[in-house]
């Protein structure tokens, strides 16, 4: 079975919000109708977004690290938001695992939003129906597009390539390899929702260098000193 998902690399994300704006642009102009904006140019603008980029500070000054944290529907494999919906408007697609809302069936009761621990469902204040990330279902299933464009808008927009898209059930897909080899993890695993989206942690590349590797006893460039060979064998002569 296919389970499409995003893998978000927190090591690479710079928090530029390009995914947020491209998501809004694509989805507000799409077949499903606008995503409302209220008071967009006033002091307290509010509106519907499928994707938000948040920022967390880890540690205490001066030893802090900034984590930019994009968050959208994780397309859970056990989505708790689906069975609670009284109308059947919320559903999980059998063919590709994308969790969707049928805006023509939704009565705006908000019950599904209570049943999602991640806070990614938003009631549209104009249409009064529940909205959330669709993984750009209209793009990724559009066979008339060339293969490399059949990706969510956010993935195409990300300038640092922090967002990978693919089938997490296919062990050889780029997303599965990334999860496997770079420590991909799920959010709030304690609820057993099995989010399909994964995050790659912040990673540090370190090389270990010992003192004697910096100051080689037999450093041939120290011309002024006598070559150690003249003084008999050193460790470097036997261990290479």
């Amino acid at each position, binding site marked *: 079975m296919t389970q499409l998902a995003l893998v978000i690399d927190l090591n690479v994300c710079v928090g530029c919000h390009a995914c947020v704006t491209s998501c809004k642009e694509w989805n507000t102009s799409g077949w499903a109708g606008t995503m409302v904006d209220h008071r967009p140019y006033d*002091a307290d*603008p509010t509106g519907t977004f499928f994707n938000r980029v948040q*920022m967390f500070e880890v540690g205490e000054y001066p030893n802090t690290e*900034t984590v930019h944290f994009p968050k959208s529907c994780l397309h859970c494999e056990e989505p708790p938001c689906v069975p609670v919906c009284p109308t059947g*408007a919320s559903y999980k697609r059998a063919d590709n695992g994308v969790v969707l809302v049928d805006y023509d069936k939704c009565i705006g009761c908000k019950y599904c939003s209570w049943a999602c621990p991640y806070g990614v469902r938003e009631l549209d204040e104009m249409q009064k129906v529940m909205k959330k990330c669709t993984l750009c279902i209209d793009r990724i299933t559009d066979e008339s597009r060339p293969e490399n464009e059949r990706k969510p808008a956010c993935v195409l927009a990300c300038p640092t390539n922090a967002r990978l898209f693919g089938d997490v059930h296919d062990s050889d897909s780029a997303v599965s390899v990334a999860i496997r080899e770079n420590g991909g993890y799920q959010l709030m695993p304690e609820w057993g929702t099995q989010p399909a989206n994964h995050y790659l*942690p912040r990673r540090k590349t370190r090389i270990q260098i010992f003192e004697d590797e910096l100051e080689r006893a037999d450093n041939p460039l120290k011309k002024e000193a006598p070559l150690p060979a003249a003084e008999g064998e050193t460790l470097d002569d036997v261990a290479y």
Partner: protein
Amino acid sequence: MNPAFSVIFLTTLIGAGQGLFMALVTGQVYSLANLLEPQDNVSFYAMGSALALVLLGGGLIAAVFHLGKPSYFFTRAWRGITQWRTSWLSRELIALPAFMLSVFLYGVAHYFDMTRPLFVIKDLVPVDATLLLGVTGAVLSVVLFVCTAMIYASVRFLQEWYSPLTVANFILFGLASGFTLAAAFSAWSGIALVGFFGTWAVIFTVLAALTRGFSIYRNGRIKHKSTLQTAIGVRHTKIKQRSMGFMGGSFNTREFFHGAGRGTVVSVRLFFVIMVFVVPVVLLAASNAMQSAHLPIVAFVAQYLGLMAERWYFFAEARHPQNLYYQTVG
């Protein structure tokens, strides 16, 4: 959670309506067993059913205003009964009209005096149409209580609600307010059942005080499963949100935060404890001693106001894990 007035009205009104109907049927069963004087079909049972229907109808209207748009009631709400296999909300949407229908039929049967026994059980219990409808309605009333409560008690992310105590509270609050209303209704229309209903109302109120007290205690010591660490998946004891990604609020900041200070929440709790548990018991006891026609009515009004505060507090005390993601504007 942010308490919605539509839901506060819905749950308190139908709770009282269900309790009142249970009280009527209890009265009928008691008089069948010759433990109580039989009551008049029209002025007691039919009028009582009408009163219950008014409350249930009020609840239904409140529910309509909980929909995204009230017009969805006509265009889309029928879909809400399709997912009864998995959704307690869908089950409630079936149970509520079914129960209202049985209350209506029960009232009509009494109004038209349909009390000729249809059959007799063991030469002892004459069963007529009103009794059949009453028992059916009582069962549906319990079903509706469970459906309503399970809407809240089944959301495992709201750990304050995820408990059998929630179901017990909903049932006992409904019965307490319904029997208090039955006492008030009897006192108002001069029916000699004030003491009977009042006694049951006090019993249910005391039981509700026990279960609600226990759930307040439980919720005070609850340990939430999710933390900022699991929310973003970083192992560090010091994590702070610096920006939630937007400035002017969103659905997630409006729906899940009540915005009231700790002081307000504690005052509301004190208010409802006094109004739901203390005042009605004192007033019902006093009315029993003084044979007053008005005190039971005051008792019901006080308890109903208290229950609205209780429902507000019920929402306010529940803290959703999604709130971890919405701590700092920026």
